[in-house]
């Protein structure tokens, strides 16, 4: 009996002590109708008419009562791909689709994901001629008399979509007050099981699909002085694939990291230059927050910031890049820059430090509350205030509806996008 019992208990303990390997891979997006040669790309004017706030009439169990729909794009070489993102509040869910025209209908093909867990699946939607496609495809503007209804199905995993989803356009998205939606670590954390690793160039290219208008990235220096993106103080399996290397990233040359280290999804650790190239040339992002994670001179980062700001100006892109000042050590190094007074910066310290550093943005921690009086003081000085890092949907809603901040840093930019764009 004793042996039997020990075997059973040992087996149970072994079973429960095993760590689950969670994954949420993007489903296969094959849809014959969508990929048929008869389907053609949508023009800019057609795409714009689809954006808006929609009530969800069927599928509320999956996505809540409403969704904000907004287009973004990714540029690869000379090719630009457009994506329609559906931002939903429930369970931090979003849908990302590509759109095509087929005869007198519009097809939307993509996938959905719930960020709080691993649920994902295919989405296949249609705007038929009678449900608004005729008006959208016509040359005229959409009026309040036009009804736009998106109908179709969503599924789970790679399964055939079989659950009905129906949305009805109710109003345009809110753009009344400019608001920066800043994705943490280039788009989100690796623990949120996104299609690319945190702080990778690949994730930066995806960030706007998740609702981001800007990104925050973590900058460290390799032992040979190359600025790279990496969050943690040391190499570890939370952020990289197992390779036997240990210790601070500052102990390795860039060549060593480039050769030996791969991020969790297999990407290389990007240099700051690669990251800024991705943000500037491949995305519609218009803000980059460089979170300074290293000690020592920040002149090299300042030089690169200046170079990319000039490139952005030359392109007419309007990309803003701020050097982050998270602590007193970085503040002191920042003040050693000859041109610190005109260097765009985001200061996480006190209002006095914002004044001393001439930072254009004050960025307090969200756990201090709304701080509306302090934010109003900052506005009175012609500066902006971004709050970090909010992930709880209930708090995001409160900070957007009751706060005066000009931007918000989050691992869930899709939730920030929903509450901002759906605001009336």
């Amino acid at each position, binding site marked *: 009996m*004793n042996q039997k*019992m020990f075997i*059973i*208990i040992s087996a*149970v*303990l072994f*079973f*429960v*002590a095993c*760590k*689950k*390997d*969670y*994954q*949420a*891979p993007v489903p296969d997006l094959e849809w014959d109708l969508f990929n048929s040669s008869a389907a053609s790309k949508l023009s800019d004017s057609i795409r714009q008419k689809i954006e808006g706030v929609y009530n969800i009439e069927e599928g509320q169990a999956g996505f809540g009562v409403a969704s904000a729909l907004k287009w973004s794009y990714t540029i690869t070489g000379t090719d630009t791909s457009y994506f329609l993102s559906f931002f939903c509040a429930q*369970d*931090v869910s979003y849908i990302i689709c590509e759109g095509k025209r087929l005869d007198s209908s519009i097809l939307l093909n993509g996938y959905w994901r*719930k*960020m*709080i*867990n*691993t*649920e*994902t699946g295919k989405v296949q939607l249609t705007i038929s001629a009678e449900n608004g496609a005729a008006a959208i495809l016509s040359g005229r503007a959409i009026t309040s008399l036009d009804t736009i209804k998106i109908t179709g199905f969503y599924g*789970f*995993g*790679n399964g055939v979509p079989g659950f009905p989803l129906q949305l009805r356009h109710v109003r345009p998205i809110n753009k009344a007050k400019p608001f920066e939606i800043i994705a943490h670590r280039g788009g989100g*954390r690796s*623990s949120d099981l996104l299609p690319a690793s945190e702080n990778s160039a690949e994730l930066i290219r995806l960030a706007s699909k998740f609702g981001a208008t800007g990104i925050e990235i973590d900058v460290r220096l390799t032992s040979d002085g190359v600025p790279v993106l990496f*969050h*943690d*103080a*040391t190499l*570890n399996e*939370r952020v990289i694939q197992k390779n036997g290397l240990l210790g601070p990233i500052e102990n390795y040359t860039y060549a060593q990291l480039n050769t030996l280290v791969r991020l969790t999804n297999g990407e290389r650790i990007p240099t700051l230059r690669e990251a800024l190239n991705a943000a500037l040339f491949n995305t519609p992002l218009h803000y980059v927050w460089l979170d300074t994670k290293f000690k020592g001179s920040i002149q090299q980062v300042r030089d690169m910031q200046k170079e990319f700001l000039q490139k952005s100006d030359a392109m007419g892109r309007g990309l803003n890049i701020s050097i982050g000042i998270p602590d007193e050590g970085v503040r002191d190094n920042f003040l050693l820059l000859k041109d610190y007074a005109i260097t765009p910066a985001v200061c996480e310290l006190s209002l006095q430090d914002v004044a001393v550093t001439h930072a254009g943005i004050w960025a307090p*921690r*969200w*756990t*201090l*509350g*709304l*701080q509306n009086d302090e934010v109003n003081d900052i506005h009175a000085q012609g500066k902006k205030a971004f709050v970090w890092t909010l*992930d*709880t*949907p*209930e*708090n995001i809603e*409160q*900070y957007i509806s*009751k706060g005066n901040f000009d931007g918000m840093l989050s691992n*869930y930019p899709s939730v920030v996008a929903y509450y901002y764009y759906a605001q009336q």
Partner: protein
Amino acid sequence: MVHFNKHFQLPKALGVVMMIAFFQNSVLSQTVNTKHKFIYFPYPMDSKWRSSIGINLTTMPEDITEEFHYRIPAIDYHVNRKITNKIYLDGHVAVQILQNMITIGPRWATALSDRLSFSAGNDIGWWFGFVNVEGFKSRGNGWQNYPNASLGYRFQKNLFLSFKAEAIMNLGVQTHTGDVSVKSDERLFSGGSVTIALEQPFYKQKSLTLGFRAIYTNFYWQTWSLFENFDRNIFYPQIIIGLIL
């Protein structure tokens, strides 16, 4: 491929407990010697009170704490109060000063044989915490419910082995950050845990509890101040050490 099971392995664990009980041919109830001391062992109480004091150490997972792997000990006070022959109250207080939890609930316990015993119960728990240091003005509290079942096996030499399975039901979390208060929705299936505890004489009249608890939950109260939203069960291993008074 999606690897996700919202409902944890608790039914399987409970199944094992029940299976062991069914395999017993003998259901003779024999008294465990009263000089033996235990607090996890599921057995009808013969004294009015019994209690233990110790610590529990929970390792925080990297999904929640990222690069910082820490294990903050909680002072752990455990007390039982006899109600009837087979029913007693089980109370538990875990104190970390900045965050604390108290649970209480009834147990029905019975001997299945001279060595095997079983209990079933339900605990209600309330936790609260506050962080008021530089950069934080946060406090939070919430209710949890823990339906549970335990199976105990007594070895010949005053050695008591207990196996406990419980479901974790999160009845809502309320947090306050500065001037903002929010209440999160309840999650009735918030995971579960299994505990194996060994109890034996230690020093003079005192006995010792050594336990391991495997917690799989989408919300563990000691992580409230990190404001995570995960709705996937994450593993929190916990070591339990207690001196039975």
